[in-house]
């Protein structure tokens, strides 16, 4: 199953969830109505007249239906929005803390490195990392509505008791949730369950308020009324509990299936099922297992890496049984997990992968559309090794300090500096004009450090900077955008690569700092948008019109026939502003179509038989703009090897 299929399935599954949830809400409405009529009968407010219709009062029904619906749907939407507004909310709610980016604790450093490597290898911005310091069990989870707003949290046990391979397996499992859109469904599920839960909460609130007030002020004659209120309270509580029970059944069933997929993907990403299996075995052997102790643990139970709570029945489990998960990864597993205590693993200084793996600057990549599209959301161990070698080429000092907002901001601006000296000078004086001399100084310092970075490390450097940028205040973020704007204006001609770099940055910052996307959808047809994007790419790599036409033809051939008629636009009609709108429109389309368009982009770029690093990075940035994280492009042979269908599983 490739990335686009997984995305389609995730969408369909969300549709099913809405249907199931609607059924649950209908049942809840009926139940609440039944309770209300019975209560009114008991109070004698509705006389028992003619039998067949005595339980049907349309006016009452509609009122109850409307108020229940508004309540349940409103609370669901509220909860979903509250969680998605800040991916950190769940981790903080469970007693988590943001991992200090400059930590000297070797275990924490190791975790940060593993997460960064995995993010670079899969082509997504580095997520924020949280630690749950009060949780001795081994567990982890990922939250995120999209790539720009995602967060990974691990327990203290996970941090200290697992070896690097095991930790990498766990992180890969969580990344698969992020890449497959599972984390998104999980947020929805959380909201839906919460909506039904509210009915029960109201019931228990009624009962509790009675318990408090009935002590002193119980008057005679009111006993009948009181018992009706008690009846209503208990009934609402029961309805809520039953509703939540069913909602949890749904939640658990959906979750169990996706955990197995994430295990498979995690093993595939690292090409090392033993790591993931080892982590699961440690959970099985560890007396504390994967238990989460925080009071609100149940709420997020379907996010966890492994079962977070004690379950009475297998039906309510959000995860498949441990032995089953281990056996899938390790067929030799006999099923015995001797219990006991685990010791924290001893760590040496984090090893920096050798520069031997590094690729010489200026190499060319050969690329096939099918292979490139298949790689989206499906990284392999070679990508992780490559990410490690890329990171090794970023100067160590820069790499350490990029986790600080102050430096990260300068890195972003330094990436936008032009290669030509005179434009650079103009850009730096534009920065100075903003009135912050320290900023301009820092930017030129960072630019010096970046000079030794190879071209293909530039997008990864931006990905590394993003977690620190998320910690800017919104005023600071606004200043940064103004500075980015200045830099781009100072350079009268903007290259396609600079453009895409800037676009990736602004897209991820906007997603984080604006709680919702801009409501208006760009006024451009999908056909027009695709024509524009592909024309642009065809012209970008071509030296004469004939070559551009051939590249465009190759791109057109990648789209399924009869999809729509594409026209090659003249070079002058391909403005960057128009491209912005085109990309904004295309990211809204169905995953399957986006996959085809991405394939067409690759074909347009690869038509001349070679892909330069700048072209490759631009492709990745466009892919990111289309919401499809593409792993770094590997030097020639690896790309070819990856195209073999046998290399992909799951």
């Amino acid at each position, binding site marked *: 199953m490739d990335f686009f299929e997984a995305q389609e399935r995730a969408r369909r599954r969300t549709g099913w969830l809405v249907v199931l949830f609607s059924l649950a809400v209908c049942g809840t409405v009926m139940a609440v109505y039944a309770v209300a009529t019975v209560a009114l009968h008991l109070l004698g407010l509705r006389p028992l007249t003619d039998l067949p219709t005595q339980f049907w009062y349309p006016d009452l029904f509609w*009122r*109850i239906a409307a*108020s229940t619906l508004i*309540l349940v749907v*409103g*609370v669901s939407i*509220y909860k979903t929005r*509250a969680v998605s*507004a*800040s991916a*950190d*909310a769940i981790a*903080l709610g469970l007693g988590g803390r*943001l991992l*200090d980016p*400059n930590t000297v604790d070797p275990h924490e450093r190791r975790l940060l490195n593993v997460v960064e490597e995995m993010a670079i290898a899969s082509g997504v911005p580095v997520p924020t990392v949280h630690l749950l310091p009060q949780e001795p069990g081994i567990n982890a989870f990922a939250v995120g509505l999209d790539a720009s707003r995602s967060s990974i949290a691990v327990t203290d046990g996970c941090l200290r008791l697992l070896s690097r391979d095991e930790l990498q397996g766990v992180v890969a499992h969580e990344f698969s949730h992020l890449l497959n859109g599972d984390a998104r469904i999980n947020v929805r599920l959380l909201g839906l369950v919460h909506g039904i839960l509210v009915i029960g909460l*109201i019931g228990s609130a009624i009962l509790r308020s009675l318990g408090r007030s009935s002590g002193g002020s119980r008057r005679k004659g009111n006993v009948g009324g009181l018992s009706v209120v008690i009846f209503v309270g208990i009934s609402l509580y029961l309805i809520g509990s039953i509703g939540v029970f069913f909602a949890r059944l749904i939640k658990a069933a959906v979750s169990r299936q996706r955990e197995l997929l994430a295990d498979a993907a995690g093993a595939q990403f690292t090409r090392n099922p033993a790591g993931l299996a080892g982590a699961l075995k440690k959970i099985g052997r560890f007396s504390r297992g994967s238990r989460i102790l925080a009071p609100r643990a149940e709420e997020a139970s379907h996010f966890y890496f492994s079962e977070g709570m004690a379950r009475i029945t297998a039906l309510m489990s959000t995860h498949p049984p441990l032995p089953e998960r281990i056996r899938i990864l390790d067929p030799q597993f006999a099923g015995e997990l001797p219990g006991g205590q685990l010791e924290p693993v001893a760590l040496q200084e984090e090893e920096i992968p050798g520069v031997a793996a590094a690729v010489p600057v200026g190499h060319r990549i050969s690329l096939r559309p099918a292979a490139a599209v298949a790689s989206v959301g499906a990284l392999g161990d070679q990508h992780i090794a490559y990410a490690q070698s890329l990171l090794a080429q970023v100067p160590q000092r820069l790499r350490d300090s990029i986790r*600080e*907002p*102050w*430096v990260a*901001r300068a890195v972003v601006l330094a990436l936008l500096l032009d290669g030509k000296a005179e434009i650079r000078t103009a850009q730096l004086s534009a920065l100075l004009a903003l009135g912050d001399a*320290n900023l301009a100084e*820092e930017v030129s310092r960072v630019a010096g450090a970046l000079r030794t970075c190879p071209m293909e490390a530039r997008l990864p450097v931006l990905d590394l900077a993003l977690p620190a940028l998320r*910690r*800017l*205040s*919104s*005023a*600071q973020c606004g200043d940064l955008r103004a500075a980015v704007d200045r830099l781009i204006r100072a350079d009268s001609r903007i290259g396609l690569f600079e453009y895409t770099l800037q676009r990736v940055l602004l897209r991820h910052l906007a997603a984080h700092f604006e709680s919702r996307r801009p409501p208006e959808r760009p006024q451009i047809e999908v056909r027009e948008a695709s024509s524009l994007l592909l024309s642009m790419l065809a012209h970008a790599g071509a030296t004469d019109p004939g070559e551009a036409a051939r590249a465009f033809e190759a791109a057109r051939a990648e789209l399924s026939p009869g999809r729509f008629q594409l026209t090659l636009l003249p070079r002058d009609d391909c403005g960057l502003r128009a491209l912005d709108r085109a990309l904004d429109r295309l990211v809204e389309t169905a995953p399957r179509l986006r996959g085809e368009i991405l394939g067409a982009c690759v074909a347009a770029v690869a038509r001349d038989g070679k892909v330069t690093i700048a072209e490759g990075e631009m492709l990745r940035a466009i892919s990111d703009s289309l919401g499809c994280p593409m792993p770094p492009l590997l030097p020639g042979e690896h790309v070819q090897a990856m195209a073999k269908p046998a290399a992909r599983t799951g």
Partner: protein
Amino acid sequence: MALIVLGVLLLAVVLLVSAYNRLVELRNRYKNAFSQIDVQLKRRYDLVPNLVETAKGYLKHERQTLEAVIVARNQASVAAQRAAATPGDAAAMRDLGGAEAALGGALGRMFALAEAYPDLKSNTTMNQLSEELASTENKVAFARQAYNDAVMAYNTGREIFPVSIIAGATGFVEARSFEIERAVERDVVKVSFA
């Protein structure tokens, strides 16, 4: 009628709960923002003794100034610890602001003295350390800006109706921003050896 009253009550509860949650989030944000300052302050407090140690060899006759730097550094370090335990607390933030201003002033005097010692000015360790210190100062200032923005968002958030009804009752007191008043000395710290 009873239903309408119930509906209004429910709506009020939902509104209050969401207002409460929003306050919690805003408070978390400024607390997180303070921890960023804290990281940089600690680094600064680690740098200062090294700086004084290096300068000692040259500024033999300026013991008082150097001791004043160390005293100010220790006081600031204590104040920072207290502020980190209760970020936003009015007294703790004021103390930290005062201690930081004193440290900035003491450092400024030390650098001003160092101007008169060419050997010290050309010392590589001293140059490295003072560069590191200047860079850390920038980071502190930037993190402080982020913290003050977050505090302002929180303070505005808790004064808006209907949040203001529950803010006081549920323990959301006004947070204080982190100000360092040393307009004059600041420029002195900026003295560059390069």
